[in-house]
């Protein structure tokens, strides 16, 4: 369960897309995830396994279905390791400002 595994998992655009898909709708089955991505079922399964290995995705069995949940805990661990608690407030403010400015029409 190393940070290396987390960074490796995040280094791939398809895997980030899968995480985005789970962020939009948590608890999706493999079928549901495949519907939203232009890729073979096998490839999606492989990417999900890498995400699970890195603990970025966790699965729950409900009957015959396996649901996939986004697990952002390792990302928080990374953030806490490199972003001190004092910088955090300033970064939050900057990130809020960026969001506000980008929302406004030019």
């Amino acid at each position, binding site marked *: 369960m190393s940070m290396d595994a987390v960074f490796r998992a995040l280094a791939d655009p398809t895997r980030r897309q899968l995480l985005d898909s789970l962020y939009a709708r948590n*608890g999706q089955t493999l079928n549901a995830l495949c519907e939203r991505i232009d890729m073979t079922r096998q490839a999606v399964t492989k990417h999900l396994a890498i995400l699970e290995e890195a*603990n970025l995705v966790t699965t729950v069995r409900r009957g015959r279905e396996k649901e996939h*949940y986004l*697990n952002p805990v390792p990302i928080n661990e990374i953030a806490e390791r490199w972003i001190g608690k004092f910088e955090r407030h300033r970064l939050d403010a900057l990130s809020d400002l960026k969001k506000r400015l980008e929302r406004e029409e030019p």
Partner: protein
Amino acid sequence: MSDNTFVYVTYIRTTPEKLWTALTDPEFNRQFFLCSYQESDWKVGSSWKLIFPDGRVADSGEILEIDPPRRLVIKWRNEWMPEVKEDGYTRCTFTIEPDGELMKLAVTHEADGPHRLIANVAKGWPLVLASLKSLLETGKGFERPPSKG
């Protein structure tokens, strides 16, 4: 598929007993739970409360299941945001499973229907669990007060 469930997992280098104590002891709680702590006598049917650092009750409920140091299920309702309180009770399940030298801690927070608390805790749990891991592995949690946003 469920929009009203979140499952968070962290792997912590510790023992089941230490992890259980961290989860249920108020002094331990304060060091990783956004400076808040829980109040309960930890028996099935006992009342349960999560208390903010300033003494206000953040959430309240009841112990539904308890099997130290393996499993804890809490009936959980928000108390400090009227519109969230209105949505009623949720269920929060903690499970601890040894996985080699690590303890796998899973927190499942779910509601029976759409519930505003679930979106709220979704912001809190990842931080609390990362802080708990840091506390147990390095002796130091994040000591951050809860954000009121």
